């Protein structure tokens, strides 16, 4: 379970998160939507400590992320994350991208790591590309590599930060198919997304961010079908 309690974050005098409360249960798929700059990506990166918070608390399975005593490197194994910008490691093959942290962080043997990599690359449909370098991949393939790399660590939660935003439209579908499959497998996922149709389809709960606060949240039918606030109504109609 991920508990986000009264989280605030400022960059200088600009407050981007203004007291966020949100709880995500095991097995849940939560979509975070909202205009750019509303703080949703920032919050996502706070969950695994890649971004710091100004006040409040985030607790993952009973462990406080920003407690001084918390081993963040250890905690991050539970929280797989895939970013908007593809960040495959360009100096190693697709396979090595997946096995690197397995061998160097988890201490898994090379053979075992390769077996895990093959399973995960198969899962995202990239096994045939295992021995090429990331530059030979399309944007969609690089994102699927990012997903396989994160999954290989055996995370309990997967965080997706606008993973389709930088993709050409024709490549979006293949990445969404992978996400759809993960949700069907019961993976706990938090998605920051601009794909409203997709959010509506896979999310158990949709959270609408506006100017640093959660303006509205609820099941997708309610958020998209019967938005309460004017702001959400305007956002949904614009986003189509």
């Amino acid at each position: 379970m991920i508990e986000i309690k009264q989280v605030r974050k400022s960059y200088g005098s600009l407050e981007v998160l203004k007291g966020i409360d949100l709880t995500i249960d095991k097995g849940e798929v939560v979509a975070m939507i909202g205009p750019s700059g509303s703080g949703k990506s920032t919050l996502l990166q706070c969950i695994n400590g890649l971004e710091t918070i100004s006040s409040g608390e985030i607790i993952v399975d009973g462990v406080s992320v920003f407690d001084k005593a918390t081993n963040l490197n250890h905690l991050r194994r539970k929280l797989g994350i895939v970013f908007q910008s593809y960040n495959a490691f360009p100096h190693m093959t697709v396979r090595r991208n997946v096995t690197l942290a397995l061998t160097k962080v988890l201490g898994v043997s090379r053979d075992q790591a390769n077996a895990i990599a093959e399973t995960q690359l198969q899962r995202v449909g990239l096994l045939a590309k295992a021995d090429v370098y990331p530059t030979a991949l399309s944007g969609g393939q690089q994102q699927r590599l990012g997903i396989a790399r994160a999954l290989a660590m055996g995370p309990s939660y997967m965080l997706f930060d606008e993973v389709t935003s930088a993709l050409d439209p024709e490549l979006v579908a293949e990445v969404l198919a992978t996400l759809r499959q993960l949700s069907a497998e019961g993976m706990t996922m938090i998605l920051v997304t601009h794909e409203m149709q997709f959010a509506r389809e896979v999310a158990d709960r949709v959270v609408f961010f506006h100017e640093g606060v959660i303006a509205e949240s609820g099941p997708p039918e309610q958020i998209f079908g019967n938005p309460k606030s004017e702001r959400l109504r305007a956002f949904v109609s614009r986003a189509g």
Partner: protein
Amino acid sequence: MSYNFQFGIVLDALPDLMQGAALSLSIAIVTMAVGIVLAMPLAVGSWNGKGLVTFLSRSWIELARNTPCLAQIYFFFYGLGAFGIFLSPWLAVGIALCFNNAGYLAEIFRGGLKGVNANQMKGARSLGFGPVGAYRYVVFPQVFTNTFSSIGNQFIWALLNTSLGALIGLYDLSGVAMDYQSRTFKTFEFFLAIAVIYFILAKLVLFLANRFKPGGARHAA
């Protein structure tokens, strides 16, 4: 006045010159290896550290790059004598060149670090790597690729700088030539000969560097 060119003497001295060249090359290789290891934390510290760390690494880089290499060698050979520390010529040259190489390489790596996308660090940290592991396995391999030619140039500098060791009695390629010319008075022949040998060694280094230039790594978009 006429001068008799006698290159036969140089040929006779060739085995000794080769031994000197081997010492020069070994010192260059070892001080480059140590320099690379030292330059990595220096580059990160000067670029991304705070307070004292930044001050110390910046100072190292500034001193190494803005003082003559000869002065650095003299400092370790003669200067440390003031503290009762007496180093042998090869140790003094070795330490001075490690200091010098590390400073220049750190500046090269600093540029290389800027060329690696910040997302690479984020990606590595998100997989559970600590900062050291992220630099070691993800960031620096890319820095080496980006800066490979500059590292090769620094190697050549290191090799040529070893010749300064002759001034404190190091029996490197230059030291051997100084010794022979003082005994035979064939100054021109010996210095021409070692100039040719240094040139060939430098070109050899460059050739090997180009040969083994890493090619697999390219930046992601």
